[in-house]
């Protein structure tokens, strides 16, 4: 697909990989899933990607999560066809043709469309090989947003307990699970987690192993805003390639060719210098094909083509003339036979034949015979002429205009080629043009390259300077300072010793250095701090959740069972080291279409806001 650039030494030219996702196989659950106790399923429900897998106990903690897929679904192309239904994640292959039909259950980082969430869960369960009838018989660990709205948790619990019949559920925060995975388990740790995901960035202070939710802050910027910003920048710079700059390609540029500048202003000054620019610009090569541009065909090639077309037409005409000749010949023979009948004196047969032929008298027959025979003679002559002309054409290399002019009147008589006449009359004047036009040679590849220069640092910078895209919120550095200032000095010191970076949007080269520089600027002179990046910022949340599940399998204080869900309502949450803070406010039970039948079926009460006890 992508054509490498031309003869000159191509520095920094990168093709787009344009990866297509392969559809996931339906995995067999295997013996791991059927232990003595039901094995927990760990599902990291992210707005960018959902990761699902088993938490298998035993010596081998197990490989990566079995399933990783984009959290999107779309109907197949061509509108709502009957059987296909919506496809999920990796079964979609390439996302670009379906870009406008992609739907995600998430709105920012909260799942709001539970129907689509149901589809994603179906996909996960099906491909993990869940085979139990009537219910999913495994406890589930699910990640949720920081300070998840009670409504959303209620909807999610309802989906899990009532639709899938899950025995017990634990909710947690993905960044906290990731923190849990990266810290030695024996320590009860405090620290400051900066977690940057697809939709938003959180700053989470953790004190004594427990999240201090009152002082968390969230900035509503993440990987998706950076991708959209980069896409708009490139589209405005290259308005001709509007359609080719797709969101998937900008995500690829963001993941592979962007970095965070340690000092933004200084880095920009470096980019001013043309040599630095030349060395560091990344030229993204868009796929192109030279056949699209008609001007690459020289006029000789065009003439060649026209010659071929002419020749083909001539052959076609010759064939048709021969066929017509044959038909006429046959008809002539029949008529002559009838005439013989007359001459032989078989009057009855003659008259019958005349009636079949729709003629009234022998004279008419005679005249018809004469006309036909003259037509046959003419046709034979024309065929001979055309053959002679064809031979003349073949011998010469270029068609000269006199030949064509000779052909034209002979061809005009034949009715069949009336449609070809306009073509022929068009052809002649163009053939007369001189052939010596030289096509300007330019590097086609260069025309299809996107020069990504300062955009490499501008797009990821938005989480530090939201004013780049007009957001009023403060950036990561300023919010970090704000959060730290809410604590007394000794707690600040404690928190800053353990700054932890996690989340997919933290994977830019240079991110750690930037955070360290920002901390250096805001901390008192000669105080120390420690910044650590997660070992695998994308998957650590899943690993952490799995480790947590294995450690807390028997602990009844952290799992929400179905009975508790029914008694205490959908918003109920049991707190643990990696969870949100539970505020016991009862949500009014959502009335569905048949409210009366439902109210009688459920054990718990349905109405009113609950009493607000302090947590």
């Amino acid at each position, binding site marked *: 697909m992508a054509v490498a650039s031309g003869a000159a030494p191509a520095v920094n030219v990168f093709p787009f990989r344009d990866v297509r996702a392969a559809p996931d196989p339906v995995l067999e659950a295997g013996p791991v899933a059927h232990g003595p106790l039901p094995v927990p399923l760990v599902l990291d429900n992210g707005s960018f990607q959902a990761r699902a897998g088993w938490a298998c106990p035993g010596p081998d903690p197990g490989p990566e999560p079995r399933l990783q897929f984009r959290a999107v679904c779309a109907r197949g192309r061509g509108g709502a066809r009957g059987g296909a239904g919506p496809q999920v994640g990796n079964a979609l292959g390439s996302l670009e043709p379906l870009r406008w039909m992609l739907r995600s259950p998430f709105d920012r980082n909260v799942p709001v469309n539970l129907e689509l969430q149901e589809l994603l869960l179906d996909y996960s369960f099906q491909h993990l090989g869940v085979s139990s009838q009537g219910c999913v018989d495994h406890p589930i660990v699910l990640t949720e947003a920081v300070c998840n*709205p009670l409504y959303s948790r209620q909807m999610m619990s309802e989906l899990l307990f009532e639709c899938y019949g899950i025995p017990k559920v634990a909710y947690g925060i993905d960044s906290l699970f990731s923190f849990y995975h990266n810290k030695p388990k024996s320590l009860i740790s405090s620290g400051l987690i900066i977690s940057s995901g697809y939709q938003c960035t959180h700053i989470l202070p953790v004190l004594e192993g427990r999240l201090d939710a009152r002082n968390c*802050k969230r900035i509503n910027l993440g990987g998706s805003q950076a991708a959209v910003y980069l896409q708009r920048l490139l589209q405005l710079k290259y308005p001709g390639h509007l359609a080719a700059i797709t969101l998937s390609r900008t995500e690829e540029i963001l993941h592979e060719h962007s970095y965070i500048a340690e000092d933004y202003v200084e880095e*920009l000054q470096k980019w001013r210098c043309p040599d630095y620019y030349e060395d560091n610009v990344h030229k993204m090569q868009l796929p192109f094909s030279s056949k699209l541009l008609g001007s690459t065909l020289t006029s000789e090639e065009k003439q060649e083509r026209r010659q071929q077309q002419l020749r083909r037409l001539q052959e076609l005409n010759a064939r048709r003339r021969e066929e017509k000749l044959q038909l006429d010949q046959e008809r002539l023979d029949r008529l002559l036979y009838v005439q013989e009948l007359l001459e032989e004196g078989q009057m009855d047969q003659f008259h019958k034949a005349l009636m079949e032929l729709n003629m009234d008298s022998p004279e008419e027959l005679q005249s018809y015979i004469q006309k036909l025979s003259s037509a046959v003679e003419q046709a034979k002559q024309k065929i001979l002429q055309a053959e002679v002309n064809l031979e003349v054409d073949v011998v010469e290399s270029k068609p000269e205009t006199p030949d064509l002019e000779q052909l034209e009147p002979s061809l005009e008589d034949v009715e069949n080629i009336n449609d070809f006449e306009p073509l022929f009359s068009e052809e002649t004047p163009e053939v007369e043009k001189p052939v010596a036009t030289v096509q300007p040679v330019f590097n086609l590849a260069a025309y299809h390259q996107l020069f990504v220069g300062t955009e490499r640092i501008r797009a990821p910078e938005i989480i530090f300077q939201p004013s780049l895209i007009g957001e009023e919120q403060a950036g990561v550095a300023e919010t970090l300072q704000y959060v730290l200032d809410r604590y007394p000095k000794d707690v600040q010191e404690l928190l800053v010793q353990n700054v932890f970076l996690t989340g997919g949007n933290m994977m830019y080269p240079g991110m750690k250095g930037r955070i360290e520089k920002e901390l250096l600027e805001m901390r008192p002179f000669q105080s120390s701090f420690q910044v650590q990046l997660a070992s695998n910022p994308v998957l650590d949340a899943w690993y952490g959740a799995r480790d947590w599940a294995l450690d807390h399998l028997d602990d009844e204080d952290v799992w929400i069972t179905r009975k508790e869900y029914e008694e205490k309502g959908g918003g109920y949450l049991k707190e643990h080291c990696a969870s949100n803070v539970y505020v016991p406010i009862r949500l009014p039970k*959502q009335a*569905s279409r048949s409210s009366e039948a439902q109210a009688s079926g459920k054990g718990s009460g349905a109405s009113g806001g609950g009493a607000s006890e302090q947590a």
Partner: protein
Amino acid sequence: MEAMSENKMVPSDFSTGPMEKAARPLPFKDPNFVHSGHGGAVAGKKNRTWKNLKQILASERALPWQLNDPNYFSIDAPPSFKPAKKYSDVSGLLANYTDPQSKLRFSTIEEFSYIRRLPSDVVTGYLALRKATSIVP
């Protein structure tokens, strides 16, 4: 684990409808499940859409929170106190100048001539990127 049929929330009359998929039902789920949230707050045929985040947050605000309770909207980061730096719309370098005609920011003379030759949709695009398109002329 007991079978799900007794504990259905909704009677089976409502199992048909937009919830059922055309594909064969998956064995591990209850085929008669209906989301209660799909009807919205009003139990009727009118509200068939899911609430989006803004609506959810609006209804959450109405709940009886205490002053210090953490909830989704209370942990929003505050607006910035520091003045924003100005960067060129075209190249991203520090911009000292603004074009009075189109309100785009630029840093060098070449950028200025580039800006003056831009079609108006590209100009609006750059301004919209910064959320600087003015509604009031």
